[in-house]
């Protein structure tokens, strides 16, 4: 697969997982698939980054995991947002807004400082 799709920064991935799980509990592949679709196939979520991130988030108490059954009758581990995770999502969202508006601000400066 020719790939111009980018991998996500670690912190960003966790924020997106939180957001995904805020809608409904989901298994690993579903999370990855949903993020890819929601981003318009811009982001690629690999197993190598997704599962370590899920383990880390579980350790921090943001998500809970339980085995369930998919609509295709397949056993899968479902992840669910905990209240701590819900609060964390707000924290992440706020800090992302701050960071992205700051980055926007920098990118929107018309003249380089050297020219002033």
């Amino acid at each position: 697969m020719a790939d111009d799709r980018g991998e996500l920064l670690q912190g960003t991935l966790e924020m997106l997982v939180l957001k995904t799980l805020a809608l409904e509990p989901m298994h690993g592949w579903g999370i990855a698939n949903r993020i890819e679709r929601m981003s318009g196939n811009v982001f690629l979520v690999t197993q190598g980054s997704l599962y370590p991130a899920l383990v880390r988030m579980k350790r921090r108490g943001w998500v809970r995991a339980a085995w369930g059954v998919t609509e295709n009758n397949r056993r899968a581990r479902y992840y669910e947002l905990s209240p701590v995770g819900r609060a964390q999502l707000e924290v992440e969202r706020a800090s992302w807004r701050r960071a992205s508006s700051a980055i926007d601000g920098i990118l929107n400066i018309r003249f380089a400082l050297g020219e002033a």
Partner: protein
Amino acid sequence: MSIAPDVVARLRSLLFRAREERELAEELRTHVEMEAEHQRTNGLTDVEARRRSVIALGGVEQVKEDVRDARGTRLMQDGAGDLSYALRTLRRSPGFAAVVILTLAIGIGGTTAVFSAVDTVLLQPLPYQQSGALVRLYQSNVSAPESRNFVSPVHYVEYRTQMSSFESAAAILTYDDTGADIGTGDNVRRIRLLPTSANYFDVMRVQPAIGHGFRLEDEDGTGVEDNVTAGPVVVISHELWKQQLQSDPAVVGKTLVMSGRPYVIDGVMPAGFKDPIAGAIDAWVPIDLLQGHDPREAGNHYLTVIARLRAGTPIARAQAELDGLSVRLQQQYPNAKTATAHLYSLKEDIVGSSSRALEIMLGAVGLVLILVCVNIANLMLVRGSERTREFALRSALGARSSRLIRQLLTESLTLAVAGAVAGMIVARLAMSAIVAIGSGSIPRLASLSLDPRLLIFALLLATLCAVLFGLIPAVRAARTQPGEALRDQSRSATSGGRSMRLREWLVVSQVAVAFVLLVGAGLLLASFQQIRQVPLGVKAEGVLTFELNLPAARYDSTARAQFYEAFAQQAAAIPGVRAVGGVSRLPGTGAYHSWGVTIQTGPLAGDEKRRNTGADNRVISGEYFKAAGIPIIEGRGFTAADDATAPDRVVISKSLATAMYPGVSAVGQRLRTGGRSSEVIGVVGDVAVDNEGHPAQYVYHAHRQFAGDRNWALTQLIATTGDPTRLEGAVRRTLALRDPQLVMFRPVTFDAAIGRGAAQRVFTLKILLTFAAVALALSALGLFGVLSYGVKLRSREFGIRMALGAERNAIRGMVMRQGLTVTAVGIGVGLLGALGLSRLMVAVLFHVNPLDPLVLVGAVLFMAVIAAIACFLPAHRATSVDPRSALQ
């Protein structure tokens, strides 16, 4: 964010690792399948879809590794891996592991036990409030200011009332064990009594937990002796209260019958209270101090005095006041013209004589600890060199050196922990052994307990030692080029190298330390031999002794006189008994009743300066002289005719006879002692006053004549033709026939009774012997290890030599020579150490020069023999190398 879920999650990962791994695998497989299904619905073939999904998702094993990292348990899991690897390696060399663990156990256990003992006895303060202010007061003589005598009741009363430096001063009667019998019928038993002055509990600053202590008026004749007064009182111990009075809370005012006489219970002491000098006591009774107001008693020394200094008063200032008072008292009491007194810190007084024994013990254990560390170092170095090849190989295969070092560290720590656990067991055993051997002769030792701080200290030391010397080879291996090490180890036929020389020096130090301990033990052994050979003037073999007290309530003086004689006759009829007698104190067990003697007839009678002398007084019954093996030199011993109706008569010892009646026969002369003027009817052989053979002069009184003076508790001697301990039952039955309520107290052989005073030396000897044996074993082990290793490294060289025609004997000689050279250097260094040791040893030696040539030569030979044995096996192994296999 709380860390609780984090810790829980990590713990769970650690505990349920297998399940987590299984679940992870399943989760990842599901993921791949879902992705494949997804691709398939987009129109790809099965195989292609699956291939693509795997590519898209990355390698499964890699993902697993990443997830494992994310779990945050990697370090712990690696640690567990190291541990199981270490256990596996150690299991493969059980000999090495066992020796290291055993060595560590001895080091940790021995050190902890001995340090605990020293701490308990020497360092911890006495368990009384402001115990630093407690002093012991001894009387002495102007001519012998160093002597430490008991205090006369007259002087005690003066000190107590006149000394302003004393907050209070208590008198107790530790002069000899005072006992009482309690209970009835079969339950009769002897308890320990301590007569004390009324202020005893104030001086100790410990009051009865229930009730109250004594009043001053209780001191007026309420003794356990004959002097009957109204209302004898008693304070009992917590233990006696529990056992005998069922912990009755309303016990005060009730009656306790002791030795047939009722006592009113005044109070119960708190649990665990012990007298600093007498130790565990069952009951305290008021001391009879009426004699303290009788000036004639100023020369009668029998009280133990403990005083409490006023707060802030230094002992020197109190001593100065006491000196002034002594001068005044010398003028006041003409019969104590030369009496002075000295103060000593109570703690120093109690532990003083045993501190040297403990110092030696401490020195010995210190040396053993050095040995242990050296041995561990040696073993670790040997093992490290043996494994150079293994490390080189693993390093060549890509193991990082930090990982290798961590693994060795794990191995050392595993050994250290195992050694520590074994060490704690050894410490427990060693401590109960120390208490069992020493508590009779070393004060305060009975309260020995394991000090956790010391345990930690020993633990750290041994661990440090193991880790440090475990690391040296690891670091060395990490530094060398793997290729070089591999080549070196497999090819070189001869060895030499720095590590070998370091190990040899370690063995030299081991031999030196072991030699020093060997010399110490040898010197004590020689002392012991000397003591046993000192003539005491008695026949101590084949004699059973026990103490026998007749309760004054049921036996008046006439009955007592009659009882002791009748018992002697009856016991003498037991088959196998040669003679039976009683004495107020056994010879060889210390001075007792040292009274003034006035010469009334003979050449010195008119000489004012020389007619007063002193002698130890003994009251005897039955055939005492025969039973104790004391020969009658002149005149006769006592017979049934020498009873209360006959004129007063005494028998004296030969040296006293010579001193008092020079040039004339002592028989028929007269002397005055113990308040009566008597005729000398016989002269007997001299006996020693202690077990070191110090001579003393004696006056013997017949109990028949002297029973009225006080309730003499006579120690009975049953001389037999065979083993005295086998007669114990028969003697007990004979005693029970006469009076079933009497207690046969402390039955022991005469030999052992005399030996009791030497218990401290026995204690030191046993400890030193143990340490010397351990040291010898360790150094032999070290020597053996180093030589064996050397032989192993040089097996190729030996093979070549033998192939070239070298004699087996020559090869064996080479190895033996190497080992014995090391031993010789070690002994040389050890000799210097023994020189230093000798000064420390003088105090505990008896008639033995600390540089006794016999002991030194013996130690050298012994060491050499042990070393030769340790060298022989490796030497023998060197010759068993098959030249062909060595050359291939």
